[in-house]
């Protein structure tokens, strides 16, 4: 079961991991301590593997820092659901194999409620009903199947969708 963490619109990468807390400034081993360190300090302490983030539009806007989605992956976030994602964040999350779904569930789901995230049939099941998530394109699921983009490339010697290396 997954706890829902609801966030607003335009959650930027400085809110997710401020630049001062980058692995470059601290250490890679500490990254799991820093997601939302200033924006929502209880998050890193309470988040459990499999929890989901439900947010408003333009989630992850700002920096190219891959450690923003990585910090969320490190603490085990199971999926992020938002009506739209900033492009570099989307790319980085895809590279890391962190599932993102484009859907607006901010009014359907409550912060703190417990739901079931079903990645086999793309559903969020709650006591007040089930919500469908859009099925990701094949190339996205191919990356998830390998874990992340780098592992995909390492195994196949090419990018997803590319004919040959």
């Amino acid at each position: 079961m997954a706890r829902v963490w609801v966030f607003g619109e335009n959650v930027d990468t400085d809110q997710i991991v401020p630049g001062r807390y980058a692995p470059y400034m601290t250490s890679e081993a500490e990254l799991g301590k820093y997601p939302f360190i200033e924006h929502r300090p209880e998050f890193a302490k309470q988040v459990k593997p499999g929890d989901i983030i439900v947010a408003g539009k333009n989630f992850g806007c700002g920096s190219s820092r891959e450690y923003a989605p990585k910090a969320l992956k490190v603490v085990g976030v199971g999926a992020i659901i938002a009506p739209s994602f900033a492009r570099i964040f989307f790319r980085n999350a895809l590279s890391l194999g962190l599932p993102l779904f484009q859907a607006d569930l901010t009014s359907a789901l409550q912060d703190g409620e417990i739901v079931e995230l079903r990645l086999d049939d793309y559903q969020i099941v709650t006591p007040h009903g089930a919500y469908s998530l859009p099925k990701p394109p094949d190339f996205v699921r191919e990356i998830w199947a390998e874990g992340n983009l780098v592992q995909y490339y390492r195994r196949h010697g090419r990018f997803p969708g590319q004919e040959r290396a």
Partner: protein
Amino acid sequence: MPHTLAELIIGHAAGREVQAGDLVVVKVDRAMGVDSLTPSIIDVMQKELGVERVHDTDRVAVFVDHVAPASSVATADNQARIRKFVAEQELCHFFDVGRGVCHQVMVEEGLVKPGQIALGSDSHSNSYGAIGALGTGMGSSDIALAWASGHTWLRVPETIVIEVSGQFQGRASAKDLALAVEKLLGADGAAYRSVEYHGVDSFSLASRQCLACMSTELGAKAGIIPPSGEVAARFPVPGWLRVEPGARYERVERVDLSGLPPKVAMPHEPDNVTDVALLDRTPVDVVFLGTCTNGRVEDIHIAASILGGKKVAAGVRMIVVPASSEVLTDTMKDGSLLALMEAGATVGTPGCGPCIGRHMGVLAAGEVCLSTGNRNFRGRMGSPEAFIYVASPATAAATALTGIITDPNTI
């Protein structure tokens, strides 16, 4: 069928005709890493991907600009690691502490050219659109793959055109246009899109760099300005790189420069834009002139024309960080930097300066900063309780003079 500039550039790199929506793998002309992410790029390439050496040393560039010079043992250790990697790989395009912000130096050094594709481990890599290249920011995994393979994968973006007419009046400049577009489209208004700016043929290279750089704050994949004027005179422009009448644009917006007033982005989002003249009385603690957006010779000249022979208001710290060592020495030679120093400004090492809140002017809780940078997210420059306003160099200089955020046309 006619193509957008993004379709032309990506199509050229892919070796075939492409259109918006296509997923393609392209050769990367240059992939740039900055100190913030380069240690993780190295880790991904060597440890996770299992590739020891970069594919082509000539197509890699590495910069130490985000924390330059190092501010702590952790950053110093990471920079030492970067230098060791550069030496081992025999990388020929390495720019250490003091050379300046990657996006400025890439252009100064001719490491990106019109019609090319350049990636950077920094979101403002959109800046290369200033010279008609497709520049785009990516994270450690994508840059590591580009270093290892020489390629990347891209979805060909749809294009939004900003059709500019008229001439700036008074002290309005490219930054005010960029902020007006920010207000018009919003912080995600060009997400996944390419933005083309038409009608800016009279813009200098520096003004184009400011405009292209700010495309990032629209969420854009690229911001491209068709080469003309100063850019066409200074850089080789391939014949195929031109605006094709009839190209399919998703949206066209018109902006008239005549009558465009100086603009300011208020805390804590870059699209929270208003006219400087309409802002409530806002005293500042810090004025920061610099960054990849507005730390160039032209910007320092504008500030010096306002502050020369005068004094920065009591209680205001004015920090000037030239975008590159070339900007630093040029403005030292022509006296404009000295004019700012005599007015009471202090000067930092060329690089990103305090823009990312890591060093050289971190803000305290409650402090207000007027920055010529690009984004004003909460906590960006230090305390999450600080307030960042983003505006032009002219507005920054006028504000330094009065201590209150000031429309430069009123002084």
